[in-house]
């Protein structure tokens, strides 16, 4: 296990290094100089040069890349070109919306998918299974942002149970904060729940065909007892992997959902940054999202290997 973990850790560091290099190089080829963009077209050349020095744009590319990476490791993401404030602070503020939203959606998706998947597998081929599978087929076809708009129409505009958008802030209390994230979280969760329910069902069906399930029945457990004690437990391994992977999808998906509900999260930050050509903010947010995906995958791999020793030798 230790050797496997070390090997995975090495490849984690390598992935992060290559990903950061790719992001840096893509942003590098962007036309235009940030300093002259910030100062406008009438700026004096020496003012531009001074600002370039201040932003650290006058040093060679390799050195800039290394400085960028080492600063990030120290939690310093640089200074925003347009707002002149620390990018790390801007991101941290927005993370308090995007991260809870993604987690909330993950919880909802799991709460919907587990019962649905287990129910469908237990009633395989019957009407209940057909209904769940039909619903998941529809669930994966619905664009989450459209579903979000429909929920705003029904629950915010017509029924007035929720506000149509915006975020009240966590200082208004946990309940108020969660309440304003509920519609976004549901719309984010539903398509993922459809996928997860399918994985849960097929994973459980595989297990139900195993010999040990027959043994469990033979030793006198009822269908229900065998299903819960031996079936669901064993079916969890692939399901947990998918849940881990879904977290990164949810974080990236929240970028689009935030637009529907006018939430001040990472998505809003990055779109504002794109339109004001604040490339350092774009660079940092993208790096953060990719970092999240890579690290979550790493954790999922390790958990998987800890639970199932067969996997350690495979990679």
């Amino acid at each position, binding site marked *: 296990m230790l050797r496997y973990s070390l090997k995975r850790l090495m490849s984690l560091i390598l992935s992060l290094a290559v990903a950061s290099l790719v992001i840096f190089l*893509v942003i590098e080829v962007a036309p235009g100089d940030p300093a002259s963009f910030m100062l406008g077209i009438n700026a004096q050349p020496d003012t531009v040069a001074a600002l370039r020095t201040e932003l650290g744009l006058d040093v060679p590319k390799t050195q800039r890349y290394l400085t960028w990476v080492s600063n990030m490791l120290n939690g310093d993401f640089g200074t925003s070109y347009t707002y002149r404030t620390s990018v790390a602070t801007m991101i941290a503020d927005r993370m308090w919306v995007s991260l809870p939203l993604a987690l909330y959606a993950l919880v909802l998706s799991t709460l919907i998918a587990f019962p649905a998947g287990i129910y469908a597998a237990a009633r395989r081929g019957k009407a209940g299974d057909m209904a769940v599978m039909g619903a998941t087929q529809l669930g994966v076809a619905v664009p989450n942002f*459209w579903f979000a708009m*429909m929920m705003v129409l029904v629950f915010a505009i017509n029924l007035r149970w929720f506000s149509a958008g915006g975020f009240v802030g966590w200082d208004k209390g946990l309940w108020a904060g969660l309440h304003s994230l509920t519609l976004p979280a549901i719309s984010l969760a539903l398509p993922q729940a459809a996928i997860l329910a399918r994985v849960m069902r097929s994973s459980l069906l595989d297990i139900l065909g195993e010999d040990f399930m027959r043994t469990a029945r033979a030793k006198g457990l009822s269908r229900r007892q065998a299903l819960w004690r031996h079936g669901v437990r064993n079916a969890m391994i692939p399901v947990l992997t998918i849940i881990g992977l879904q977290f990164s999808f949810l974080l990236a*998906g929240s970028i689009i959902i935030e637009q529907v509900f006018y939430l001040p999260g990472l998505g809003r930050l990055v779109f504002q940054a794109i339109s004001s050509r604040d490339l350092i903010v774009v660079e940092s947010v993208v790096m953060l999202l990719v970092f999240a995906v890579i690290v979550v995958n790493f954790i999922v791999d390790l958990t998987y290997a800890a639970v199932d020793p067969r996997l350690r030798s495979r990679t």
Partner: protein
Amino acid sequence: MNRNLIIGTTLSSLVIFAALLSFIWTPYAHTAMNIPEKLQSPNWQHWFGTDHFGRDIFSMIMVGARTSIAVALVAVSIGIGIGVPLGLTAAARKGSWLDEIIMRGNDLVFAFPAIVIAILITAVFGAGAINAIIAIGIFNIPVFARVTRGAALSLWERDFILSARVAGKSSARISFEHILPNVMNLLIVQGTIQFSLGILAEAGLSYVGLGAQPPTPSWGRMLADAQTMVSFAPHLALIPGVAIILTVLGLNLLGDGLRDYLDPRLRIARS
């Protein structure tokens, strides 16, 4: 013929037919504004109603189908064009440094969700339908590379490949002449799935302004325009949404149906 295949084929051909027909005929010009007739609900003159500029929504949906299909189709072609050769090479050189590099490269690309690629490209080059194509296309590459490699690996163990090797064929030639035709079914099924995912992704990207720009009609942008008017003109949001759902649903059913049809083993296992 199974039920999925019939429904899937019907829905998909309907959308493709609408897209093709829009090249020669739409009820109205999709860009024609007619302010006096703005925001009409569906009626006999305008089957799907009109938007805030009085443009005919039915015509816009038809032309929008064109954008969706074009973006998703080119993105799938990018995925197949680059991913399949990579997967074939990795399988032919299983365990070598080349295989290792290709697979690690795949993992790396997987860490960039399509929306993140689109954000990067748009930040650097500005918004446009091309960006959506590239972003979704890059996202498709590792998908096809993995599917191809996985299927090709098991084929390389088979006797008929061994005979081809004994006959002195190079591994490149074997990959092309014997492996590729045998993974084709799998690629068709995966292609259908990626095509439907591409339609969803295109809609999402144009919704947030990272995809097709005006005046190119797109379902995602129609939804973005509809957002502020959803309280008094819900049909503006309802119709493009249903168009997306039916298209994606049709393609998914087509993919499921094709899988059962092309792989008889699965059919037996089911019954």
